[in-house]
């Protein structure tokens, strides 16, 4: 099927969001057939086994960590948080694009979201899962992690609600559960489609139970749309709050380089930035591999690159204002950190990687050629994620330069740190590959609403 270029810009004409044979049946077929193949192609297995082995590495290193203690990490005094929190913030940030696409773009009536929202929401949940691993094991005695919850106990103690770390517990767990509900609610009609097409007994049972007996009744749709809108309206401030709370972990402290008022919106912009980069990284191969080029068109990819460019500018703005204010404050510690230690100190390579990957390289998206060439956008998106990981690392390294030179220190990751970071990608891709195999990757019911209605047979 020829792929039509729908990236043209004609103010008098809205470009079609779905190309090719865009009718109801073909959308159903295209999406459902991915999960209905009796046996997935060999390359899926290769990718799955590779991810699974990385996941195994993560599992083994976690067992080693629990059996030995958190000393196996490079965390030290004064860098108490080290890589685990860098990974945590990185993964939570990745998740934000999913909610942005599913909720905020929904409120803005950006209909191009329909083709990618399912995949992005799935990515959100898997990324938050990866994120949750790190604070979970950082508590050391993981079997006591439930102490974080406020429950009456024989010690007569309660958690400290004035601590940003507890806010994090609430924010991230709320985010994970609301994202999961939102994702599942959106998937019910599509699960019903899979149920109705199912031929084997297992599929009938599994999709039948999962779709809860959905019939597509007009009354049900009416309430469903209401609920979807409400969940979108709730998820929008939620997604802002989650990364704001993550930023409070740093910004309420007085550490130079952490305590600055722009942190909440700056973290949110950075999160969406990295998340969109991850969506592009996943969507480009997925659409090519699963034959979704008519559903996830070049226009979708181009729009995503534009969001990356816009959020890159926001992140650049935050870097700039931070630098300016560090000088403007005339606070010697701030000035030293921003103008001395970060750009020229021991972690200067990380700093310059961050600036290059987050601010400079995405500017390539000003060129149409870069916005419409898949391999280019994947490379830029990968670099963006490197840069965003580095950003969190650079922020963390503020701890090495406290107010007192006597408490200065340094941080060197151990092999376990590195293995866990790589292993978390294994967890992420394992879940994502399972999702591609068993669940509808594109929100069929939603894509059908943006078809021009004349196209039906």
């Amino acid at each position: 099927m020829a792929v039509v270029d729908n990236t043209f810009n004609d103010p008098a004409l809205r470009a079609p969001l779905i190309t090719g044979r865009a009718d109801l049946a073909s959308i159903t077929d295209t999406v459902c057939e991915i999960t209905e193949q009796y046996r997935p192609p060999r390359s899926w297995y290769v990718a799955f086994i590779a991810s699974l082995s990385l996941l195994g590495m993560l599992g083994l290193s976690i067992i080693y960590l629990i059996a030995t203690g958190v000393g196996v990490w490079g965390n030290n005094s004064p860098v108490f948080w080290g890589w685990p929190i860098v990974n945590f913030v990185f993964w939570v940030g990745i998740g934000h694009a999913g909610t942005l696409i599913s909720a905020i773009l929904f409120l803005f009536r950006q209909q191009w979201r329909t083709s990618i929202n399912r995949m992005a929401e799935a990515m959100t949940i898997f990324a938050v899962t990866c994120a949750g691993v790190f604070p979970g094991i950082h508590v050391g005695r993981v079997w006591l992690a439930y102490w974080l919850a406020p429950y009456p106990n024989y010690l007569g103690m309660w958690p400290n609600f004035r601590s940003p770390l507890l806010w994090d517990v609430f924010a991230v767990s709320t985010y994970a559960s609301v994202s999961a509900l939102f994702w599942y609610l959106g998937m019910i009609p599509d699960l019903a489609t899979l149920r109705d097409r199912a031929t084997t007994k297992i599929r009938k049972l599994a999709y039948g139970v999962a779709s809860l007996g959905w019939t597509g009744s007009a009354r049900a749709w009416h309430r469903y749309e209401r609920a979807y809108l409400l969940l979108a309206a709730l998820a929008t401030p939620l997604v802002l709050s989650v990364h704001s709370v993550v930023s409070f972990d740093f910004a309420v402290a007085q550490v130079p380089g952490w305590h600055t008022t722009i942190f909440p919106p700056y973290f949110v912009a950075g999160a969406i930035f990295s998340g969109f980069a991850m969506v592009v990284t996943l969507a480009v191969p997925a659409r090519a591999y699963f034959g979704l080029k008519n559903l996830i068109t070049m226009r979708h990819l181009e729009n995503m690159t534009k969001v990356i460019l816009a959020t890159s500018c926001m992140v650049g703005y935050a870097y700039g204002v931070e630098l300016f204010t560090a000088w403007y404050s005339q606070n010697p510690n701030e000035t030293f950190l921003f103008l001395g230690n970060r750009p020229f100190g021991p972690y200067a390579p990380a700093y310059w990687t961050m600036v290059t990957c987050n601010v400079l390289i995405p500017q390539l998206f000003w060129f149409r050629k870069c916005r419409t060439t898949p391999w280019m956008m994947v490379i830029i998106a990968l670099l963006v994620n490197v840069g965003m990981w580095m950003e969190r690392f650079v922020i963390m390294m503020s701890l090495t330069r406290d107010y007192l030179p006597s408490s200065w220190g340094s941080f060197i990751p151990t092999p376990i740190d590195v293995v866990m970071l790589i292993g978390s990608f294994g967890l992420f891709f394992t879940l994502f590959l399972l999702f591609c195999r068993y669940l509808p990757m594109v929100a069929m019911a939603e894509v059908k609403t943006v078809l021009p209605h004349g196209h039906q047979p």
Partner: protein
Amino acid sequence: MIEHEVQTDQPQVLSGLLAEFTDQQGLLEAAQGVREAGLRRTDCFSPYPVHGMERALGIRNTPLPWLVLFAGFAGCVVALLMQWWTNAVDYPFLISGKPLFSLPANIPVTFELIVLFSAFTAFFAVLALNGLPRFHNPLFQHERFRRASSDRFFILVEASDPQFDAIRLRELFQSHGAVSVEQVMADPTPARIPLAVHLTGVIVLCLAFIPPLWIARDRSTTSDVPRIHPVPDMDFQPKFKPQAETSLFADGRTMRLPVAGTIARGELNDDEHFVRGIVANAFATTFPAQAMPLDQVMMARGRERFNIYCATCHGLAGDGNGITSQRALARADSPNWRPPLSLHSQGVLEMPIGKLFFTITNGVDRQNDGNLSMPAYDVQIPPRDRWAIVLYVLALQRSRNAELNDLPEGARESLALPDIAQ
């Protein structure tokens, strides 16, 4: 025009008429037509939400937003009460100088709970309002209805509608371009759940009670079994604890004495005059600068300290007849008791003040046998207080040997001294 009847063994009754359309326009028109014909118990089925359907079917607004709003309020109240009660009432503790109930710090959790409560309400309310999950539906018996979730549009009119007329309805559907019309048959007998499902449910329910019962038992009883140590190297750490034995050192103690000559912070007492009452190897005759000024405050302090530390033996007036001494002398079982000196005795009166201070500091060994007859007070009384006591002792002594000149000018006349005048 295709007609289908679903064939099953079960006794069935007609529950409605289902018509199939190929596009949403046909469905909308049919829905409008059915509504105009006065039928109300109708429903439409489509693979995606069809706009205009609310109007065509006369669907009323759902109370969902109000439920969600209410849940949001509930979340807000619960969160604020929880944070107030746990951190300000039940377990109050101070963190970084913030008030116990500090609203700005409570906003994040409050916000999250508002969203959590609202979102769960939205999700479960939409399922409940839609009657989901519902796994048994007569429509699922229709092979054609499987396309309702893919690319076909259906309208159902229930037989229970008072205006239901199968023949007229069939014509109506056909006039709007229905590609098929089917009778929906329902089994009037209630669906029977297999025994296995019942049994499984009962067993799972029973099993579900075990963990809470177990926990309840363990928390209400005591046990002499040692607790489980999941990570023994954290519970039993290879380290030396204070007051424990070790073979590492010759004296067998884990605690080490400080290096000889070690002085703790702030305890370098190198001012001989202030700390020992000695100036140039002789007892001081003046008060040190640290004890200045010698005023009413200092005197009051000295009197207070004297009455606490000294008066039990030396007596409140310094006559050496304190309550301890009186009791010891009255008892037969304390033959070694050496009565304290009267502070008004000649030897004491002649002492330089440095000697008084030295005595308070180091005690007195009157027999020179290594047993202190008066204990040393350097540990209990800080140096400045000892100087205050010295000052008070001087005042006590002077009170017995005062002269008229000691009184200020104006006060002398007020003393009525008739016997001296004689």
